[in-house]
């Protein structure tokens, strides 16, 4: 009898083992979004233009009261993964809850931690289980694995959205070789009149306290830039509280090494094509890695490094360490993209009172020679067709998911809720219908724990710059003139006044011109795979630059270091990569 029991047990276990392995078909059942497709709610269908946000009472109800009322909308929970580091919001986030109550969708966003974007995407692919929404830097990998839902039909279901968000040519840029559109870039679209106040691009940044001390000099070249820094360091080795000042640091971690790598293209006066330079007159691709401007840039960095003005930890620090360093206010200058540091660092400056001490950064559009035109600032909307928000095949209710993407774009009330917050709590409306924040509201909005508990931007869903549908306000608070002015601490205001600049783009003073239809070229190279010789070359070039550029900056003998770097660089066959980029450019001839 005992043996029989044992035998049965054995069989049971063996079967359990086998079935445990065989299960993969019931994937959709596991996703939290498996609820029945909710009927689209009347609220969400109201064309946004007819209900200006300020007048709708529903949005004004504080979150605490909203759930108490009987639930009119069935809430679908979606998941989203974004291959960028970010802060997760609390699961009971107030605005997220309000959005869920009204639009029936709640999105749990998760962000990149520790891995690189391609590792995270590759791991998802290997597992075969995807979040409902994804925004990855490696979209082609996902398409190749049939992980994404083709969006063409959905887009055509919402003609207003289709026509307003992109032009037909822009939509075509998103078409993959199979003719389908799989993702929508959520950024860089301006509604109505542009209200851009920030320089949301790359620049040589410098703290206003340095400029104030030096009497606001003209800074046009790297020599000017480092001259001011060196003089300031000699006169002010420490901050008020005794923290030693740091002249210049470089972020070099993973893909963010653009902070070290691509300044050469700008110094030569070209716009941010990212991976190559496009010579418009001859319609040829040029390599900035080997150009004289780039070499001069590294020579200058090397010189400053030898003099001890470049942070010796530049090449070993992580992004977190870099942001922590900037947040202390001790770093005088660096090259970076605004969005890569400013949102985090400026909030910290505000909470710590460092903005009043002149720690904010202003951009300089340096060029190799004095008097050259610079193209650091991108005036047009940049459509980066390499990435964007996509719906995966794991999503149980793609209709509702896509509906939410459209709502985010088309519903001003939702847009205001995401970026301005709750009326009466996060912002006020004056007699003219203009939104503004009080000082207390501004401070609260910048507070990280408040952000986690209250603020919900769904920042990788489509969003507008420029003017709101009410025709008065800015879509983003930082672009509201009154907000922009009031948000600036005094040293920053003085600095702008001294240079006669009204905002950041004025400050950098780039030439206003329209970029070619190929712009930006990086949106093509980002999608290269190692299967083509050019793609392999591109991967290897990245590896080589990652390793050698720091060595070049640190080299005791610059010329020798540069020559060694060039040898290693040429071994990667960059010509294969350039040839493939040229092929792409030729399609625009």
């Amino acid at each position, binding site marked *: 009898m005992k*043996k029989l029991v*044992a*035998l049965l047990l*054995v069989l049971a*276990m*063996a079967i359990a*083992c*086998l079935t445990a*392995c065989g299960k993969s078909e019931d994937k959709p059942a596991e996703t939290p979004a498996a609820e029945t497709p909710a009927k689209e709610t009347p609220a969400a269908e109201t064309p946004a233009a007819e209900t200006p946000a300020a007048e709708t009472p529903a949005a004004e109800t504080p979150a605490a009261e909203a759930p108490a009322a009987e639930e009119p909308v069935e809430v679908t929970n979606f998941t989203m993964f974004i291959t960028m580091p970010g802060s997760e919001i609390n699961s009971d986030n107030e605005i997220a809850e309000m959005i869920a109550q009204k639009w029936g969708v709640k999105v749990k966003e998760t962000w990149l931690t*520790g891995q*690189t974007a*391609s*590792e995270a995407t*590759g*791991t998802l*692919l*290997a597992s075969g289980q995807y979040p409902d929404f994804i925004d990855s830097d*490696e979209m082609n*990998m996902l398409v*190749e*694995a*049939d992980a994404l839902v083709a969006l063409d039909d959905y887009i055509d279901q919402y003609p207003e959205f289709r026509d307003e968000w992109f032009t037909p040519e822009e939509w075509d840029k998103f078409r993959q070789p199979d003719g389908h559109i799989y993702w929508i870039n959520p950024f860089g679209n301006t509604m109505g009149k542009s209200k851009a106040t920030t320089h949301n691009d790359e620049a040589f940044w410098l703290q206003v306290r340095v400029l104030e001390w030096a009497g606001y000099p003209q800074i046009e070249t790297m020599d000017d830039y480092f001259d001011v820094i060196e003089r300031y360091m000699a006169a002010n080795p420490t901050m008020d509280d005794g923290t030693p000042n740091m002249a210049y640091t470089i972020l*070099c*971690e993973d893909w963010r*090494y653009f902070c070290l790598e691509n300044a050469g293209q700008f110094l030569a006066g070209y716009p941010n094509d990212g991976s190559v330079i496009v010579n418009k007159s001859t319609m040829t691709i040029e390599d900035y890695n080997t150009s004289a401007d780039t070499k001069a840039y590294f020579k200058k960095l090397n010189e400053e490094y030898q003099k001890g003005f470049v942070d*010796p*930890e530049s*090449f*070993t620090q992580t992004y977190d360490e870099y942001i922590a360093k900037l947040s202390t206010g001790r770093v005088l200058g660096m090259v970076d993209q605004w969005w890569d540091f400013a949102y985090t660092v400026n909030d910290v400056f505000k909470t710590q009172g460092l903005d009043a001490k002149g720690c904010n950064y202003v951009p300089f559009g340096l060029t190799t020679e004095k008097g050259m035109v610079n193209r650091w600032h991108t005036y047009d909307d940049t459509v980066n067709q390499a990435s964007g928000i996509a719906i995966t095949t794991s999503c149980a209710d793609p209709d509702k998911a896509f509906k939410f993407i459209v709502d985010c774009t088309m519903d001003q009330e939702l847009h205001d809720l995401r970026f301005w917050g709750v009326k009466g709590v996060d912002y006020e409306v004056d007699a003219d219908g203009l939104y503004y924040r009080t000082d207390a509201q501004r401070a609260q909005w910048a507070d990280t724990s408040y952000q986690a508990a209250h603020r919900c931007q769904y920042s990788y869903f489509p969003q507008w710059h420029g003017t709101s549908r009410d025709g008065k306000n800015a879509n983003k608070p930082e672009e509201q003139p009154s907000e922009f002015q009031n948000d600036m601490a005094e040293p920053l205001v003085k600095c702008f006044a001294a240079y006669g600049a009204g905002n950041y783009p004025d400050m950098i003073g780039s030439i206003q011109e329209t970029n070619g239809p190929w712009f930006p070229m990086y949106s093509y190279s980002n999608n290269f*795979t*190692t*299967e083509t010789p050019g793609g392999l070359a591109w*991967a*290897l070039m990245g*590896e080589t630059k*990652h*390793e050698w*550029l*720091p*060595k070049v900056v*640190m080299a005791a003998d610059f010329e020798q270091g540069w020559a060694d770097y060039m040898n290693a660089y040429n*071994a*990667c066959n960059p010509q294969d990569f350039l040839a493939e980029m040229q092929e792409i450019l030729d399609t625009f001839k």
Partner: protein
Amino acid sequence: MAKSAATISAPRKDRKFTWKEVKRQKVLLIIALIVFLYGILFYYLPLFGWATAFIQYKPKFGIFGSSFIGFDKFKFLFTNESIGFWRVMRNTFCMGALNLVTSTFMAVVFAILLNEIKPNLIKKPIQTVSYLPHFLSWIVVTGILHSALSSTGIVNEVLMALGVTDQAINFFAFPEYFWGIVAFANVWKETGWNAIIYLAAITSIDPTLYEAASIDGAGRWAKIKYITLPGIKPTFMILLLINVGNVLNAGFEVQYLLGNGLVKKVSETIDIFVLKWGISQNDFSLGTAAGIFKSAISILLIVLCNAWAKHAGEERLF
């Protein structure tokens, strides 16, 4: 442990294979069958995945739909210099060997030293504290290392206070320090844990041997040299053999978390290489090829060492 391994591996010659015997051991055999099935299921069936290395694998088409390319990926791996596979092999092997030597040596020394402490009141807390780091995850350990070795970290401050250097050393910028840092991290984290098994081996040594040695006039040093060390030798050999097979598992987290562009030439291990090419560059086939090669080398290492142990008349695995 060594003893039981020896008895199991020694076949009992007096017993012949008969159906009667099978029937008698039915329950035992069935229990063994579970383990056998488990092994098949989780160790051998996944090996079919190795087929990935011989095809141009596309997730869309699966293993059977992708095109067959034979040994192309291996050829690419071994001959393309710019992807640096041999350098990665060297890094892995050297770091693995360094880790093996340092951690084994430290564990033995620590176990012996600890054994020499007689009062349990002192000995037990030391032992407990020493193996606590084992339970920390690597991300925590590398975080500690990163800040300890930074320019404002404790190591640089001590060095500067002692006047060894007048400027902070940026340890992670020099390739020549990297292997040492990794070995140190391993020793710091695992010494206490590894020492447990040696402590157990020392405990099983017959105390009368020590008594007899004392009567013969042996001091502490002589007792360690002539009784303790020979006593733990079988354990030492078996552990060494097992670990040799792990040399190429030199680590992933430490190197991944501590590495940066400047030290990449010496920091990348096979596991990082597989991640980089297999997952990041989405070339599953190349990643698998590298993985297969690693397994082949590991098996070769174990077989060679086992043969050597057999030749030298020491304890061995098979």
